[in-house]
């Protein structure tokens, strides 16, 4: 019997209102997330990949209740977090932290590094100043910055260093889970490698779980144990990373992987097949969300939305082709 998951999301839904006003009803709903379920284990890196607007960031925010779900359930360490009141959730919230994409806008420019890093500790009982400074110093050392950086301001740092500060802030309360939303996407390649290695070292040291949100399949492949692919608010495929790369089953996943330009001039990409754009989440197509772009689509795909079904052990696919027909 495997260990109970640290995090369990069940049938998460988020619809954002469009238009309307204080009294007027919204004119439409953006269906950002439509029924997403997954579980994340202790010490695991779980990847959420997909293109802009697929709902991956909204999911990350819902897990920390930065965005309240329209419906669904989130369990953290066996506790239903959506049922908790503010105070109760505040206590639990220390155990889950978030790192954002843009190291330039996620740090308050008027705060020193020490203030930024130790801010999460100020909620509740306030530790003595000397202790805060000591904590901040230790954290900076952990993320590869110097103690002398404590009194500096964010603008004095490069993008990669700012991301390290954001990571130190997240680590400050000794979390068990970190939602990392595109944490290396704004960084240059040489700096990206530094931050990826740091994230992996910290995971080892503290036994962290990561919800790793990214559009970059190479990075996700490098970091994650399991990967889920999202399209238009739904998970279309979920698999252990090696399975995901080697034998993807969903036509969208296949297209996504084939679309990555390989840094190898001897392996030229096959002429590309996936046509068209992602449909609007305000008015998603009926049936399978991917059917308008799918070259295998048949009648059933246009009418009925496939749910995630087990293809092989631990490998889930939401595709009618998986229903005994097998992909060509």
């Amino acid at each position, binding site marked *: 019997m495997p260990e109970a998951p640290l995090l369990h999301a069940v049938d998460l839904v988020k619809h954002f209102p469009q238009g309307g006003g204080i009294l007027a009803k919204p004119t439409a709903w953006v269906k950002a997330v439509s029924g997403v379920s997954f579980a994340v284990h202790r010490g695991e890196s779980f990847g959420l990949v997909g293109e802009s607007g697929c709902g991956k960031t909204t999911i990350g925010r819902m897990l920390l209740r930065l965005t309240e779900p329209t419906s669904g359930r989130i369990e953290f360490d066996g506790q239903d977090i959506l049922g908790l009141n503010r105070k109760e959730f505040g206590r639990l919230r220390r155990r889950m932290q978030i790192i954002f994409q843009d190291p330039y806008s996620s740090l308050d420019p008027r705060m020193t590094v020490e203030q930024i890093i130790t801010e999460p500790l100020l909620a509740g009982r306030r530790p003595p100043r000397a202790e805060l400074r000591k904590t901040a110093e230790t954290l900076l050392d952990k993320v590869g910055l110097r103690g002398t950086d404590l009194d500096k301001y964010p603008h004095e740092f490069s993008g990669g260093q700012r991301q390290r500060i954001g990571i130190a802030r997240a680590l400050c309360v000794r979390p068990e889970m970190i939602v990392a939303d595109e944490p290396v996407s704004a960084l*240059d390649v040489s700096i990206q490698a530094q931050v990826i*290695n740091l994230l*992996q070292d910290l995971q080892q040291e503290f036994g962290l779980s990561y919800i790793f949100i990214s559009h970059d399949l190479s990075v996700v492949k490098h970091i994650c144990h399991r990967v889920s692919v999202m399209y238009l608010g739904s998970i279309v495929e979920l698999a252990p990373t090696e399975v995901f790369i080697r034998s993807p089953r969903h036509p969208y996943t296949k297209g996504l992987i084939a679309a990555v330009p390989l840094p*190898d*001039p001897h392996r030229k990409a096959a002429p590309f097949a996936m046509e068209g*754009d*992602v449909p609007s989440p305000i008015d998603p197509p009926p049936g399978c969300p991917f059917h308008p772009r799918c070259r295998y689509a048949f009648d059933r795909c246009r009418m009925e939305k496939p749910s995630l079904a087990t293809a092989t052990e631990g490998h889930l696919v939401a595709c009618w082709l998986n229903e005994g027909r097998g992909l060509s």
Partner: protein
Amino acid sequence: MSDRLLGIQDLSVSFATPEGPARAVDRVSFALNRGETLGVVGESGCGKSVTSLSILGLIPSPPGMIDSGRILFEDRNLLELSPEDLRRIRGRDISMIFQEPMTSLNPVLPIGRQVAEPLRVHRGLSNAQAMAQAVEWLKRVKIPAAHRRIDDYPHQLSGGMRQRVMIAMAMVCRPKLLIADEPTTALDVTIQAQILSLMVGLKEEMGMSLLLITHNLGVVAQMASRVAVMYAGQVVEEASVADLFDRPFHPYTQGLLRSMPRLEERSAGRARRLTEIPGIVPAITETLIGCKFTARCPHAFDRCREKAPGLFGIRPGQQARCWLKEFPERRRADA
């Protein structure tokens, strides 16, 4: 007619900053033949965009200043042309597309008129003729229902569609050279693949040359025939795409290739630690006497700190700005 279409020779560009002049491009030279695709790669601030903007005379001055060098296009030095002469070349013989199509398209003009404009300006076509050709071009870049979309405004299109409009606009006059500065960086990967294959098709059909500026080594590997790697304002290595990926010489190029997480690697990705390039890029206001990569280079020795290396020939078609060519015994086997 010579094969050489564009030759940049010893180009230096600097910007006035509160801390004094900052040299963004430092004696950069490269050449582009007809029909060829040259990739210019490098990280933020390496000078790749400033180099490309210089070609079209688009460096804002002040604060920018071209300190020296020549940009030869079909044997004419673009830096010596009058603004009118340069305008005649821009958009007709040389076009450019940028990373963010929303900032390069005019938000208050319908896309049809924007695509038609170069034809009216450079070819003297009437409104109706230009518009008819614009529709043809929008079809060629695969804008669905192009004849109905010519009255759309840029904000009504998706990012990928906007980039297609930009490409149509750049191509209508059938330029000899297209400069594409991070053309797919703002796009999702499936849309990127569509745009890249569109660019390859058009380039082959029209026989134009492509100067592709990007930070993405995957895009370069798939698109370019030759590559120039820039670091801190200089070209540090230039080679055919195969040599660059198979036999990179410069420690920076080697570091870049090793630091990338790779999708295609067969081994379980998680086990391998990425090779980092330690440290950060020097600020362009810093004055460095020796090689600019010294502080981050695993092989650096005295010479690197004392004297800036020139470009050394490594093998036919490959050059690198590195003292290791002269002192191969200094290359550390463990790095």
